[in-house]
Structure formats: structure tokens, C-alpha cells
């Protein structure tokens, strides 16, 4: 693995396997009386979030703290930071404080890369626009590998707003690299016309996409962002692309249901599916902490320019 984790697109399958293996070892720590190891003692991890996020930011924070790193949360309101200039100013200010790892979330694609270019510290992308959200895809792959014992050869259906979803993009890269068959489905307005170039099978029929699938991954509909522009109504979306037990019957009997959260109950998933098997939503959250511990272990404090300062 290189110094930064900016996306899944440029990772090799063996690097993904290494991260997942490390995360599996990290899971044991959560079962201990003392849920903390001294590995990153004296290291500073900065959560630099230009977009509100409670889940991902807390997951990274807990991961850092379980490794004994000092975690600093640096939230910046995105309104004042749409100009690239001020983003880089912020990054340089941060760099002067000598962090050992900076976790960046930003509403605009490519910002973590630009920040990584000016920082000495390794950068982890925690979601940039509609580009990538690598740690989410990695924790999804970890969850699937643990539930199914493998990823290679599985049929994975991703359902929802494929066009605007960084979770979908990272998962498409990840699952195809790991040898799964990936299908995507959603309203035609939410399926990029050239999506098949990524090696996935697009479909506008939920039934067709989940037919015989081992994994059904539902994406969150950003009600607040779309306000009805891309599909007629939430109700119609739920009727066509929402998942309930009746529709799930088209998938394999032992299929699992995933969602990156937070779920719009009754929209992407029926209430019953959110809370009960075969949905693994809380396992995803739990695995998120172990996965982020693995990523921090593998890259935090490993700046190549060790001679600085």
C-alpha cells in the first residue's frame, strides 16, 4: 500500500486482502476488557471533515483511540471552503502541526488528493463528492468475506443512486478486483450511461439485478439533495427500488442485505429488513472500526519524508 489511501481504484487485490486480513486481527481487540493497544502512542490523527458526518468521523475517532493515537477533530463548514485556495491553506496550517495521518472528507471529488499532494502526512479519503469512499468499501468487503467466507465468484447487486454514490463507485472497484460479479440497478436517471465500462452489469429492473444474488447492497437515497429531481417521488422509488422480504425472494436463499447507513426506513429498506436478518447493517458498523484501525495501523506515521523537521 502506498502512503495514502485515496481510493480503491488504484489498489491491487493483494493490497485489499492485506487490509482485510489486518482488520480481522483487529476485531479481537473490541472483545477485550481493555479495548486499547499502545501501537500509535504519540501519534496524532486528524479528522478533517468539510462535510457533516457523525458515523464515519466517530468510527475513525474510535479506531484511532483504540490504537492509542491522539485524535483531533477538525470540522470546517463547507460553505466557506469551496475555493481550492482556502482548502490548501487549511491543509498547510494543519501540516505545520505535524500530524501523523489526516483523514479527509469533502463534498468535492479530488480534494483529498489535492490535500495529499501538499501534506507530509499520509491522507485517508473518508469520502469525496461522488468519487470514492474507500474505507466504506473495504468494510463492506470485510463484512461479505466474513459472512460468505469469500468474495471471489459471488454475485453482488448494488441498488440505488449509482450515479452520485461514492460508496457504489468504491464498491464496484473493490468487488470486481476481488473477483465478484457486480450488478447495478436504479432509476435510469441514476445509472451512468457508461457504467458497464467498469465491468458491471447494469439493469433498470431490481428483480433482474438481484436474481440469484449473494449480496444485495442498498444505497442511501439523498432525499435532501435530490428533492425529486431524478425520480418522481420517494413513494414511487420505494415501490420500485426499495427492498422488502417479498422482493428479496428473488435473491439467493442465503443472501445478505447491506446498507452503508443511515437508512431511510421504508424507502430503501422495509422496517423489518433494517432490524433483522439477513441484514448485516450493524455488523458493517462494527467492522468499520476494525477496518479503520487496520488502515491506520498500516499507514499512519509512515510518511516517506522521515527526514523532515
Amino acid at each position, binding site marked *: 500500500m502506498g502512503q495514502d489511501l485515496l481510493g480503491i481504484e488504484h489498489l491491487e487485490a493483494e493490497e485489499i486482502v492485506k487490509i482485510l*486480513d489486518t482488520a480481522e486481527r483487529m476485531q479481537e481487540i473490541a472483545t477485550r476488557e481493555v479495548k486499547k493497544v499502545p501501537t500509535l502512542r504519540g501519534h496524532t490523527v486528524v479528522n478533517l471533515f468539510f462535510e457533516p458526518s457523525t458515523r464515519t468521523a466517530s468510527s475513525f475517532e474510535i479506531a484511532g483511540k483504540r490504537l492509542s493515537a491522539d485524535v483531533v477533530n477538525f470540522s470546517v463548514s463547507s460553505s466557506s471552503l469551496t475555493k481550492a485556495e482556502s482548502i490548501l491553506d487549511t491543509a498547510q496550517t494543519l501540516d505545520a502541526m505535524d500530524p501523523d495521518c489526516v483523514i479527509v472528507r469533502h463534498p468535492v471529488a479530488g480534494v483529498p488528493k489535492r490535500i495529499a499532494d501538499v501534506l507530509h502526512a499520509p491522507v485517508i479519503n473518508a469520502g469525496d463528492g461522488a468519487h470514492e469512499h474507500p474505507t466504506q468499501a473495504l468494510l463492506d468487503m470485510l463484512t461479505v468475506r466474513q459472512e460468505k467466507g469469500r468474495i471471489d465468484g459471488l454475485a453482488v447487486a448494488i441498488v440505488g443512486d449509482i450515479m452520485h454514490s461514492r460508496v457504489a463507485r468504491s464498491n464496484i472497484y473493490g468487488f470486481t478486483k476481488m473477483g465478484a460479479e457486480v450488478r447495478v440497478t436504479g432509476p435510469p436517471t441514476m445509472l451512468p450511461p457508461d457504467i458497464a465500462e467498469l465491468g458491471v452489469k447494469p439493469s433498470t429492473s431490481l428483480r433482474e439485478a438481484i436474481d440469484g444474488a449473494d449480496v444485495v447492497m442498498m444505497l442511501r437515497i439523498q432525499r435532501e439533495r435530490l428533492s425529486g429531481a431524478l425520480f418522481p417521488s420517494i413513494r414511487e422509488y420505494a415501490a420500485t427500488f426499495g427492498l422488502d422480504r417479498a422482493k428479496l425472494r428473488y435473491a439467493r436463499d442465503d443472501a445478505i442485505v447491506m446498507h452503508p447507513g443511515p437508512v431511510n426506513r421504508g424507502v430503501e429498506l422495509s422496517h423489518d429488513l433494517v432490524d433483522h436478518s439477513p441484514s448485516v447493517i450493524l455488523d458493517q458498523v462494527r467492522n468499520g472500526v476494525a477496518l479503520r484501525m487496520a488502515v491506520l495501523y498500516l499507514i499512519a506515521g509512515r510518511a516517506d519524508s522521515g527526514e523532515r523537521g
Partner: protein
Amino acid sequence: MTELPPSGSRPAPDPVRSSRAVLDDAGVRRSLVRIAHEIVERNDAAKDLYVVAIPNGGVPLGRSIVANIEEISATAPPLGILDTTLYRDDLTTSGERPPLRETEMPSSVDGRVVVLIEDVVNTGRTIRAAMDALMDFGRPRSVQVVALVDRGHRELPIKIDYVGKNIPTQPDDRVRLIADPLGVEPMKVVLEELVGGMAPPTEEGAG
């Protein structure tokens, strides 16, 4: 049968080494029987024992010692596996981070007499890390250490309670246990000495 990499050392470019067995399968097993007897003798109540193996090499040895103790005292102590990687003192700021190994502690160590099992002890740094790790699983009544091989180049004040064999070595030498994780295949300890005297400068890892 797989060759276990030496516990707690990093892969480094390898100079040419000669290799010879310093302890064969019979020798290893005899040592483990003797050590089991010593453990039972020193700790009357074998019921408070808790054997904790440090991977990779400690694991087959730990299994063997548990089986031997059961034969001698009719009580099998629990076997825990404790990876020390996250407690190492040489996770420097650059370079690849070493892969993590298994940790599986079946129960708390509170009030137990913990017997740590390591294949080769040299600097004592791995044992230091193991003791720190152990304390995160409770408060043992006491901690004792088994080393199948003691090389003796101690860098920390660590005492070994049960030694299989003392093997004098040069700091640059390498001593490895070759065994499968279950300890059912023949085991042996090999000493790998540098060929041709002068060693290239190496950073001595944990041991």
C-alpha cells in the same frame, strides 16, 4: 509442514547463511516434557495455570506443553494465543508495518499463574511486549516464561523460568523453530550462521 518465520523480526535482505539443526524432534519433545514437569512441580495447583503462547513458534510448543501437563497432573490448563506485534517497541515511523498474527485468549487471566511460551528468546523485547499485552487481559497472579531456546543477548532485564536449551550465538546469527502450528509434524531448531565472517550492518530486531 511450514517454516515459521522467526517471531518478531522483519524480513530483510538475506546474506548467505549456513544452517544446522541444534535441536532435533526428539530433543525438542524431551525438553517440552521436562519443562512440563518443572511447571507442575513449581506450581502445585496446576488448576490455576494458564498457558499463553506467543505466535508463531510458541503455538505448537504451547499445545505440546498443555498436553504434557495434562498427562502429568490430569488437569489441562487453558491455552491462550497472544500476538505481541501491536506492542512492539520498534514499529518505527517508516517502513512496512509487520502483519498481525492471531490473538485468542479464551478467558481472563485474573488470578491465574500465566506461563508464557516463546520459541527463541534473545533480546527479551518480545517478552516485554507480551507482558504488556497480557496486562490488558486482566491481572495475573504471577507470570513465568518458557523459552525452548535461550540465546542470551538480553537487552532488557527479563528472566526465563524454564529453558529448553541455552545456545550460545553471535548477535547476527538466526535461530528458528521449524514446526507446523499444531506441533504434530517433526519439529526442529536450526541455527543459521553467517558465512564468511563479516556481516553486513543489520539492525537487530526484537527477539
